[in-house]
């Protein structure tokens, strides 16, 4: 028991001595200064998941305005609910992976970075027969985004960084039947492909925690997701 008491006293004495000594104070000051420094690495690579991909979901389920117009193209106001609609197949639950992405950042200066994100959202559902309610087929769609972004650092410290970003790019929607379709009107059969579209994402606030290996989370609204994106990254 005595030995533990002695060890405890020695430890306490050492700590209080180091904190009180000029060397200890200098070391703490140096550490604080170091922590306030921006992270020195200029590149980073990030992996993230974002939810919820509202825009991709709405395009997958309802198509764009073009699909909506085509639906009524050869009809008039009073056709607004047609037999073919009443007895068309319907969808079961639509599920998604969220937007899974990889991003590369380059810090141009202390407060500004440029980045390029490549993300994929998968969506899938089964279709059912309106009369028998039996499953008739399954469908999967993929939205692929390429999004260059400008990233503004509000606070840039070695271990914590706050930022906002704005990105504009392009999205390709594969397997979205309501974006690539054909329809028949009195003037014939028409083929439409609206699967390549612009996309954008605005993130007013995001946080990175960690130094070389870090976690991040950001709030955003746009084509990729409405809500939160989070993930991990590595600086080099």
């Amino acid at each position, binding site marked *: 028991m005595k030995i533990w008491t002695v060890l405890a006293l020695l430890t306490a004495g050492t700590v209080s001595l180091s904190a009180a000594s000029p060397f200890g104070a200098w070391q703490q000051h140096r550490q604080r200064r170091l922590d306030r420094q921006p992270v020195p690495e200029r590149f980073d690579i990030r992996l*993230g*998941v*974002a*939810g*919820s*991909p*509202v825009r991709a*979901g709405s395009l997958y*389920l309802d198509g764009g305005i073009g699909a909506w117009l085509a639906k009524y193209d*050869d*009809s*008039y*106001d*009073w*056709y607004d*609910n*047609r*037999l*073919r*609609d*009443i*007895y*068309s197949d*319907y*969808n*079961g*639950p*639509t*599920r*998604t*992976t*969220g*937007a899974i992405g990889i991003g590369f950042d380059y810090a141009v200066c202390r407060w500004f970075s440029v980045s390029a994100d490549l993300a994929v959202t998968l*969506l899938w*559902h089964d279709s*059912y027969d*309106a*009369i028998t*309610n039996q499953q008739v087929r399954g469908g999967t769609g993929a939205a692929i985004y390429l999004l260059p972004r400008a990233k503004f650092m509000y606070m840039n410290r070695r*271990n914590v960084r706050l930022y906002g970003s704005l990105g504009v790019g392009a999205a390709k929607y594969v397997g979205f039947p309501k974006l690539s379709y054909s329809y*028949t*009107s*009195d003037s014939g059969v028409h083929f439409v492909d609206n699967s390549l579209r612009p996309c954008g994402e605005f993130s007013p606030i995001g946080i990175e*925690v*960690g*130094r070389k*290996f*870090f*976690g*991040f*989370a950001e709030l955003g609204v746009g084509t990729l*997701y409405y*809500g*939160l*994106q*989070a*993930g*991990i990254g590595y600086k080099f």
Partner: protein
Amino acid sequence: MKKYILSLLVAAAGLLLAGCTIDEGGNPYRTSYKLQSFSYRMTQRTSVAAVSALNQLLLDGTDINREGFNASVDGEIPFRITRKSQDCWEAATDGEYATASLRFSFSMTVRREPQEDGHDRWTCSDVEATQTEDQSRATLANIGGDIVFDWDTRVYPTLVESTLEQNGSYRVEFFPRGMTGCLDWCEITFSKGDISNCRASIGR
């Protein structure tokens, strides 16, 4: 170690918040409401269209007991009003009106009965209509008697407003995808121009 755990926690939170189901699905089309709405519109394209056309001819000063008139539903579907006898006509499409996506036809007998108040009563009997889209078909017929249109006149200090109000019942039967038997149906009853009763059945 702490920062690794923190990073993983943030990533896990993201995965959870990403959500999985974005739409619950289900059939928003084959519903009682859709059947009722479709049925209502069929009534508008048949009896209402025929009686309105005859009234418009009257307003235009046309002698409606003259032989034969052409009219249309919403300016799109042409139909013919043929005199059968004094104050009695047949209103019908010339065969089937067809577009790229649907075919539509109707026929009925319309009678005019002058009333004591000076307004005419219009009676539609043997109302029949068929709409076909791809392999699906819907038929409309009046049930429980004729469809009767009476004028409702309201006198205001500065104007007199007259409305032609529909009374009677229809039954619309649905034969989807080439079915010979009726799968769904809807019965719709009008009283003084408004829908007083409407019920639909969705078959299994």
